[in-house]
């Protein structure tokens, strides 16, 4: 039974990082209907910025974590301003393909820094002894990750419910025409959506970097697992992203906990998300919480 609960706890830990990464993805989709394929690159950028600030600029890690979120906020905003603003009104398919181009560009920029082909890890700043509760282990880093995730999710839900900017973002995602007519600047909202996505990506990157270390291939691959998560949750639902992230974390943990090592199975955790993705696409394409507005053809 302890084993089961350990899997649950680990699943939640992993899942909340997925959730954090997925939120950024959903934010962009929700406001501008763009699938941002370069999200993994934003996450990696956030992780490296945090590392640079901590190690090279000797800023305490808490501060640099926040600073990197702010920096990535502006980074993502300028990405939107430079590349995507020009494409407002173009077919969505070209915008998506621009994000594919962005993927390569950010890759290139990261490879220009020493980080691209190096392995690094954050200096440890948390007690290395884990929290043990009834035989269930969780490290302080992971705990901090989960807490930050939920804190950010809380802040976002407040932001979208109460603040004017948040409400205008929701308005744009509901109906662009109508929100323009009441004086909301749609391009500005798009910019903000990208910026907030960048902010969450930096947070995800920072946490991820602390948990698994900084290896570009690993961070890179993390960007792809976000897709099954957002499809499961529904592309345009923030709560969906959170729930789906945690479900995906649990699925993976249970898969590696109960399937691997039995019946000759192995590495199922890395395959299952995509099988889930296919099944969801076939039977419930709008995901668990997505709006049903998807046009059937």
């Amino acid at each position: 039974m302890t084993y089961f609960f350990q899997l649950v706890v680990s699943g939640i830990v992993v899942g909340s990082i997925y959730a954090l990464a997925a939120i950024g993805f959903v934010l962009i989709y929700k406001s501008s209907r763009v699938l941002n394929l370069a999200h993994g690159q934003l996450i990696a950028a956030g992780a490296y910025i945090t590392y640079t600030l901590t190690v090279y600029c000797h800023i305490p890690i808490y501060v640099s974590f926040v600073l990197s979120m702010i920096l990535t906020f502006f980074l993502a905003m300028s990405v939107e301003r430079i590349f995507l603003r020009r494409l407002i009104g173009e077919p969505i398919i070209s915008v998506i393909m621009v994000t594919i181009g962005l993927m390569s560009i950010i890759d290139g920029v990261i490879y220009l820094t020493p980080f691209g082909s190096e392995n690094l890890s954050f200096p440890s700043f948390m007690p290395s002894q884990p929290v043990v509760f009834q035989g269930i282990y969780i490290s302080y880093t992971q705990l901090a990750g989960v807490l930050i995730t939920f804190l950010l999710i809380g802040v976002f839900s407040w932001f979208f419910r109460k603040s004017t900017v948040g409400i205008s973002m929701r308005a744009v995602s509901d109906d662009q025409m109508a929100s323009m007519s009441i004086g909301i600047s749609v391009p500005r909202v798009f910019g903000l959506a990208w910026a907030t996505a960048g902010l969450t990506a930096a947070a995800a990157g920072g946490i991820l970097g602390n948990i698994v270390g900084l290896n570009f291939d690993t961070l890179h691959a993390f960007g792809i697992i976000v897709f099954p998560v957002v499809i499961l949750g529904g592309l345009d639902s923030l709560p969906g992203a959170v729930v789906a992230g945690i479900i995906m974390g649990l699925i993976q943990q249970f898969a590696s906990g109960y399937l691997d090592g039995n019946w000759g199975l192995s590495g199922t955790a890395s395959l299952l998300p995509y099988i889930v993705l296919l099944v969801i696409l076939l039977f419930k394409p709008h995901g668990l919480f997505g709006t049903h507005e998807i046009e059937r053809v």
Partner: protein
Amino acid sequence: MMSANRWMATGNYFTTYRQEQRIFATHVDRLIFALFLVVLFSWPYFIELSTKYMLVIDNILIAVIAVYGLNLITGFAGQISVGHAAFMGVGAYTVASVAGVIGDRHVLITHAWPLMILLSGFMGAAMGLIVGLPALRLRHLYLLMATLSFQLIFQWVIGSMEFFNQGQFMYVGRVHWFSGQVSRSQHYMFWYYALLVTVVVCGLGFRNILRTRYGRSLVAVRDNDRAADAMGMHPGFTKVFAFGLAGFFAGIAGALQAYLNRGAGFETFTLHESIQYLAMTIVGGLGQLTGCIFGPAAIRLLDLQVESLARWAGEILPSSLDLATGLRPLSFGLVIVLFLIFEPRGIANWWRIMRSYVKLWPFRY
């Protein structure tokens, strides 16, 4: 009667639909095409090219065939596919696994290779139809996800099944031609001709499909699926059809790749490659047949250029600065983005402008 003169036509003078659907609008086009073919088939007799560039050209031609398929989905049917390399992999692994089962020097592999290539095409088509199935219910964003998961599941299956040698290289023997076994020194030249014939045949086939009702319904569904529906086309089936057809081209390209590389390894069919093909399609020109040829050539040559630029930069810059590392993805990404922003119709559009300039010469337009 300008329109009757099919030699000197300077613009569109179609008076019937049948005229519009001709493969070649004017006789001059036809003549130029024929001359171009003669050049393509005969240049190796006059110019000696190093093996490296022969291989580059062969790879471009393979990419052309693959991009026919991808352009059909993306340019004509309006769906994004990020699993095209996996479809090619299906073709390549059809040849490779048959070779694995019956032995890679079996007559079927070495003598009946055109048949094997065709078979791979059909395997690719079958896989395309299956992956395209969600198209019956979904629109483009979601199909991107379906192709993504197909790509990743393909990689997993190849990488973990003993039958596919766990993604390690599976060999395919050297083929035979009327003159006997194609030797190492003739290998790339032989496949140049085989690929050239395939490119031309597939290109004509592509052009012809677009003339049929199926081809036209693709464009109709892309432009407005509701209107297409109202006119009696089934948007879902049309898209599934596009996926099947794309799978066919990809399968053929993959099989040719396996023959050219003398086997199949899983590294050639990764997500990264799929994105490369997508870039070729964009840069060449979405929805343009000529784009299928310009795109692969442009991307492959750009890659070669950047490679030598990076090497040159690496020599003069301090070795601690790894400029070479970043330059390739950076330039690759920039090319995609700049094309999408400034020339969304791709290189094919330059070609179109050039052609109309020549046609109208000496008048400007």
